[in-house]
């Protein structure tokens, strides 16, 4: 069911038109600056989100160094907020990583779509391109460049530079806002409970995903199972809740809802959506 086209027929890379990701030559490209400036429209919204994440990290009991390290390395707001209570509760490393990966699964979908823009690049540059990709960049980029220029090195170079400019601006903005939040909150007492803002943020993101009846069912099942299985050790209630709720919804799709789901997927394919 992959929507990706074959990458074997790509035009070879033109080093002059397509400089390495984040090299000085790329930063000098006008497309890089255009992408960077395009980010300004959402900078304030992301900054307040980063500020709040910084406050939540600081209040959860991470040390100053840990909070700063998490900011500049992990660079994924929802996954950071999701991991905090698990770290505090002493959950095993693999449970924390599985939870973060599930939260990040939307990026897997984005990467399938963005694949055709980057497969001419070497591995290390593709990883850098992917690492910097935030949700907002993906949305802005696919509005500006809806079709990958697989055979035109000039346009292809501009597209990559535009995207990296946009994501680099996001990285800088995010880190500055997050670190400001960390430093600000480290001067305030944790008993105020400002860390609850992180819980509310995750709740808000969850509410934003409740766009179909099946997803509402998933959330109710997952939340209910996670509460009922709370006594399980090692935060395994989380793993059980994810497996059970997703499993039940898939089972419904393959049995009672089979006809309905197949019609829906055929409709989406006709409209060319992934």
């Amino acid at each position, binding site marked *: 069911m*992959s929507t990706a086209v074959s990458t074997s027929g790509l035009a070879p890379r033109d080093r002059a038109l397509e400089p390495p990701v984040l090299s000085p030559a790329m930063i000098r490209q006008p497309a890089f600056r255009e992408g960077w400036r395009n980010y300004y429209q959402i900078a304030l919204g992301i900054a307040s989100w980063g500020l709040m994440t910084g406050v939540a990290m600081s209040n959860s009991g991470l040390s100053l160094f840990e909070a700063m390290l998490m900011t500049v390395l992990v660079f994924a707001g929802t996954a950071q907020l999701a991991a905090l209570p698990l770290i505090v509760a002493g959950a095993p490393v693999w449970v924390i990583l599985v939870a973060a990966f*599930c939260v990040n699964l939307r990026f897997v979908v984005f990467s399938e779509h963005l694949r055709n823009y980057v497969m001419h690049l070497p591995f290390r540059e593709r990883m850098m391109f992917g690492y910097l990709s935030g949700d907002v960049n993906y949305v802005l980029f696919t509005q500006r460049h809806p079709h990958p220029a697989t055979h035109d090195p000039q346009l292809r170079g501009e597209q990559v530079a535009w995207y990296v400019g946009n994501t680099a601006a996001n990285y800088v903005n995010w880190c500055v806002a997050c670190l400001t939040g960390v430093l600000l909150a480290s001067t305030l007492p944790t008993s105020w409970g400002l860390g609850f803002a992180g819980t509310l943020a995750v709740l808000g993101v969850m509410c934003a995903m*409740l766009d179909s009846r099946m997803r509402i069912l998933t959330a109710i099942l997952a939340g209910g199972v996670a509460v009922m299985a709370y006594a399980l050790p090692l935060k395994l209630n989380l793993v059980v809740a994810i497996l059970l*709720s*997703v499993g039940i919804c898939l089972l419904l799709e393959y049995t009672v809802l089979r006809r309905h789901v197949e019609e829906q997927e055929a409709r989406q394919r006709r409209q060319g959506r992934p």
Partner: protein
Amino acid sequence: MSIISVPGQTDWLTILIIIGLTLVTIVSRSFFFISRRNLPMPTWFQRSLKYAPVAALAALVIPEIAVTQGELASWNDARLYGALAGALWYFRRRSVMGTILVGMAVYLPLHLGLGW
């Protein structure tokens, strides 16, 4: 066995988790860039992608709100009212930032003023 870290102190396990989370960021965002071959996505995997993120978030956040120290939260828990206000705000105005602000505006007076 779990290792309870001392709040505010740097420990190696947390550093290890942060490095692991960094790898999760890289692998998830570059997932289909890793291999040059066209990996077909099986239908069941594609379908579960619709549900796994919301399942993970619900499984995390609902116990965060509804459970205190292993017990169901009692009626006088400020988090219940903060979360309820935030969720209601979301479904009226569709703003995550508004959810946070309204939720905190309900939570803080109850928590700091009444000690809930």
